[in-house]
């Protein structure tokens, strides 16, 4: 991680000379802000706790943590984290976070949202964020329902789900988040469950380590408007939480049957499994990030202009216009 005062711009430079006092290890207390406004029992509490845990464990410089969200119950997230952050408009959190990541590659950009933000109003941005492979981590709390607006059908509501906008039961085919994310081009695609905190922490850590557009879909129950939705995957409620067995590359016959996370087609097959499906990393690719490709282009361009100062570069351009 770079020093606290570098601006992280590809052009380098700007450091401040003001003393940067020594820092203590990041604690949960330091990064806790407002008390969450979620309903008691909401799955999102566990997500918040897991996020704190990972930040604490990784001891990320507090000022470099950027927590971003769009609109929805889960998108209240930044208010509960004491760090730089923004609560943006519905569906556009991915581009907002992309802008931050691209202009300031030194920051840790974490993005939180729900199924409405990610798969409906902002669906296009999720595809393009993935296609561009912008370096950031996107955590989608999927509750299969619009909770903030009090129970309307969501893009992931199963057929037959009765909501205020589908009193007869939902009739539209729900989005398959894993398939959408992989097809869109995300380079780290994982799935977890809010009742499985350890697994969730593991996924967030792996997503954080991943260079590129990493997305985690987390089944996070809305106790108010879709209670019990994810019980089939919750062992404490009689369900089964089935993990993806990843290849260990140990040349054993068992390994043949395990999942190769770089195999896109195999990932689609896992994504096809009937609800509640499996959990873990579906797909991961080391395709170069937009951040690194842009950086390379900047370096080439800077070299071409002899690494001149801003004034020199513009003056030379104007000289050609005489």
């Amino acid at each position, binding site marked *: 991680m770079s020093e606290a005062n570098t601006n992280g711009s590809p052009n380098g430079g700007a450091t401040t000379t003001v003393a940067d006092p020594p820092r203590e290890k990041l604690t949960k207390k330091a990064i806790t802000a407002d008390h969450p406004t979620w309903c008691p029992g909401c799955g999102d509490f566990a997500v918040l706790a897991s996020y704190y845990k990972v930040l604490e464990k990784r001891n990320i410089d507090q000022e470099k943590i950027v927590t971003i969200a769009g609109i929805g119950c889960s998108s209240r997230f930044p208010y509960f984290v004491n760090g730089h*952050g923004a609560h943006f*408009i519905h569906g556009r959190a991915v581009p907002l976070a992309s802008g931050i990541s691209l202009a300031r590659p030194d920051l840790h950009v974490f993005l939180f949202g729900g199924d409405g933000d990610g798969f409906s109003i902002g669906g296009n941005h999720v595809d393009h964020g993935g296609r561009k492979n912008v370096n950031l981590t996107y955590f989608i709390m999927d509750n299969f329902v619009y909770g903030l607006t009090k129970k309307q059908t969501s893009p992931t509501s199963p057929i037959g789900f009765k909501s205020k906008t589908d009193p007869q039961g939902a009739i539209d085919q729900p989005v398959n988040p894993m398939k959408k994310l992989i097809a869109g081009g995300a380079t780290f695609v994982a799935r977890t469950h809010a009742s499985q905190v350890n697994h969730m922490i593991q996924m967030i850590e792996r997503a954080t380590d991943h260079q590129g557009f990493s997305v985690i879909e987390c089944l996070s129950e809305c106790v108010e408007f879709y209670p019990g939705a994810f019980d089939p995957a919750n062992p404490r409620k009689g369900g089964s939480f089935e993990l993806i067995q990843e290849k260990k590359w140990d040349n054993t016959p068992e390994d043949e049957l395990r999942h190769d996370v770089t195999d896109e087609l195999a990932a689609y097959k896992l994504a096809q499994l009937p609800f509640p499906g499996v959990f873990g990393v579906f797909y991961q690719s080391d395709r170069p990030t937009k951040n690194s490709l842009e950086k390379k282009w900047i370096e080439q361009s800077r070299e071409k202009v002899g690494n001149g100062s801003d004034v020199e570069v*513009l003056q030379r351009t104007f000289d050609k216009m005489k």
Partner: protein
Amino acid sequence: MGEPVNPDVTAVQKPDPATLAGAPPSERADLRPENIQDAVIRLAGNSQDGIQTAGAFLARLAGRSAQEVMTYMTIPATISGGPSIFQVRIGTGEVLSAGDEADFLVAFYQHSYQDHIGFLREGGVLLYDSDNVEPNLDDKRFVYLGIPITGLTVEALGGTAKDRGKNIFVLGLISKIFQLDADKLKRIITEKFGGKDQSVVNTALMAFQAGYAYPVGNLLKHFYQFEKPEKKPGARDQITMDGNTALAYGLIAGGIRFGAGYPITPWSTVMEVLRRELPKYGGIFVQAEDELASVSIAIGMSYSGWLACTGSAGPGISLKTEAIGWASMAEMPLVICNVQRGGPSTGLPTNVEQSDLHQAIFGSHGDSPRVVLAPRTVEDCFYIAIEAARIARKYSTPVFILSDTSLATRIEAFDEPDLAKIMIDPKPNLTPRETHKPYPLDQITQHAPPGTRILDGKYPLMSGLEHDEMGHPTGSPKLHMAMTAKRRNKMRKLAEELPVPEIYGDQEGDVLLVGWGSTYGPIHDAVKRARENGEKCGSLHLRHIHPLPNGLEKVFKNFKRIVTVEMNDQGIYGYGQLATLLRARYCEPKISSFTKTDGLTFRVREILEGVFQGKSFAARNIPRDGAAIVHTDTNPENVKTTREVVPQGVG
């Protein structure tokens, strides 16, 4: 001007190409160039003929020769082809408008001739491709110069490129006729095509040479020569570019290193320049998947500490408005360029209109103050971008720059800016702070970008929800009122520092013409003409439209009528968009407007007709010197002076 008109002026027969192929006839020795100060040259052809390229060469040459220049072009909205014009006005004195009428018309096709002969002033020269155009030679108002442009180009280039290159051939002809500096032009051509294959440069130079060597002297009595402008001692060199290019470099000079956009006419060329240029300064411009993403990415970049820009034309701005509302609420600096075109909806994508003013000022839900600026010339596109960036930073607010199609595409030469003095170092300030409030009620917001340590451990939050001073949500009615006032009051603070624009012409009198944006030149020239005809009038051109500078009411007091001149509709209540604002702001019944929506720039006499109805000088046919030429003889030998051919002081 004012010289007696020679009745014997005239058209020209076709030269015999056979003679040309052999030993070219020698140039006439008695062709002494006639001095001129100002000429409007209109090239009319199809968009694929490269007339823009040829016109741009002329503009650059003028810029290099310290002359004033302004161009005007129309582009068809079709994907490829279609009639198109490129007009260049070159002057030794001040050139503020592209010219109402052409002094010299080049017609490549019959349709070019038919569509544009009406723009040729009486006594003007029609240079036409005699392979494609059959003009009505009986119309004796003009001087005809028929040259088989297509055939000669094919002949010169060996026919491999079909008739491509005839634009450069014509450029050669023009530079001979106007005695332009051929060496300089060849250098400009070489520079332009230099990045390509050497054969491209050679072909272009061959075409140019063929046009230049053509014995056009046999067809004209005189060549013309622009008076040499006096170069003031210590004057800076001129640079030549179009408005979109000036806007893009202005953003860079203003310290913008990051941005995002989505292609749309006529904004695209701004983002093309930024995409290409920003990496040289360590930044990037992102082509986003749509307008919503592009504004959001730009806001993210701004939030990260690097003031960013986005832009579009009207339809794209409509899509961006929700996010711009957020920038207003979260008090995020952002520069938004709107290169306006004809609307609403897809409208007239390649025509000019100033109908997005209200959208820029009011285009949002809720009370969402923002700043709106409008450049008045190509040069001003550069400087206003710097100002927009400065205001965005100082007041932590979105700032609109309203350009338009006419500024976007027209080329002007202007004094090169003193970059060492004006360029902004944009690096984010990440100095650790003891404590930080993003939204203090008693101050103008200045954000601490992420990466800034806040030593008391309380980090700021940017929010679209109404918030308290730390950015945390609040439903308090009192706080909503206080924060709404905070966001509005900084605009009032800004208004205090804005200068009242100078009035051109009479400082008090009968009529004050008020304009904004690209109409600056024609309004200025209209006032000039009106004053020459005894009117007591002046003009005031607003660069800062929202907020308005303080003190305009004092200016308005001094005139009996205030008339805004705008390229938008008079609306349901009969007033243009600026007039509507001014009337609301000043409760002044003497404010009215003259508007139009034909998708074309104002001509000076349109403004005169609109503002000074019934006055003789404003009549459609403005009597002018030299206009009464009666052509009786088609023999070019009879052309006596340049003034008969290339009229002076078009306006």
